[in-house]
């Protein structure tokens, strides 16, 4: 009888994709859904991990590091993304920074806070109006493929990208952990 290796979690998969793409810097403003990824990043000396006070700072730090030769990524939740349109429109877009955002999607599929729900509905219209590539990952099977391809596309095309983590991935049973 063969011994099956346990299925990797979405957080383990993303961490490996970051390494495969030589992304050594991670900035984030926390979110409970992202916690397993954040904990794993802090525990891994490969990564420099910075948690500033605001998402705008997280974007600025990653943009500065990129210009100095270090690839980075920034993690946030939906409400954090809602603080970013000015930085995206006046820094990331005009200077053509390959900013990769990982956004945990709050405010849908059973959220109990109206504020989260309303802010969630601003996310895709803002991404669309800024012409930013975005894709919501819903299945564990898709995590490695989508995250890896979106990161590669961002860096090769000098364009920002938003990898959205749907509650279907992070909350639905059997796929969250």
């Amino acid at each position, binding site marked *: 009888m063969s011994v099956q290796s346990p299925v990797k979690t979405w957080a383990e998969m993303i961490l490996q994709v970051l390494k495969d793409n030589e992304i050594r810097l991670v900035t984030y403003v926390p979110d409970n859904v992202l916690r397993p990824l954040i904990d794993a990043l802090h525990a891994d000396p490969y990564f420099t991990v910075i948690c500033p006070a605001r998402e705008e700072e997280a974007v600025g730090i990653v943009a*500065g590091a990129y*210009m100095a030769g270090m690839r980075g990524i920034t993690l946030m939740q939906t409400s954090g993304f809602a603080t970013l349109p*000015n930085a995206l*429109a006046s820094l990331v877009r005009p200077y053509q920074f390959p900013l990769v955002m990982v956004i945990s999607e709050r405010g849908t599929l059973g959220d109990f806070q109206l504020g989260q729900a309303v802010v969630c509905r601003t996310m895709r219209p803002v991404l669309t109006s800024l012409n930013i590539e975005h894709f919501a990952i819903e299945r564990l099977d898709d995590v490695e493929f989508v995250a890896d391809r979106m990161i590669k596309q961002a860096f090769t095309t000098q364009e920002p990208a938003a990898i959205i983590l749907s509650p279907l991935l992070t909350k639905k049973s059997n796929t969250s952990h």
Partner: protein
Amino acid sequence: MTSSEKHAVARDTARVMNRSDLTRRLVAKLKRNEAVIGGIGNTNFDLWASGQRPQNFYMLGSMGLAIPLALGVATAQPQRHVVALEGDGSLLMQLGTLGTVAMRAPKNLLMIVWDNGVYQITGSQKTLTSHGVDLVAMARAAGLANSAWARDEAHFDALLEDALAGHGPAFIAARTDEAKPAGTTERDPVKIRMRFMEGIAV
């Protein structure tokens, strides 16, 4: 200069100086290809007018993000000194970044704030520093012990030399007048980024 002498100057007793002159004093002291991030508005206009070094980055929008950008550069290249230039209005918009810098404590990062007490470019409406907010006190309270007001031009030069010797993170605030900037930055963001990336490539 002892630490207590360096830090003895209060905002009230700091001389009101000229931003363009102080920017040129800074640039004259840059001998090791230090990176400089110029914040939005007159701050980067005067940096531009001081000579277009390839190691200069001119931030045309994203008010308040000069220090985070500089922190990113300083994190990626710990051997290179990095200077962030900000105005008082810009820093007031992103005060949390002082705590972020203190947490990371990069020895190679110098933050300089020009405090003229007004949003000069939008018609000189008063900022909070005109109502008693002391940015050096805020920087210290955020954990940046090496923070000081520049008493006068000579003191500014001395503070610069200390910070560029690697005693960072350092924070220098200078009171400035409302003279117009000495030039206007050419507004081509991609060219600015690419020139900067080539200027600090390792």
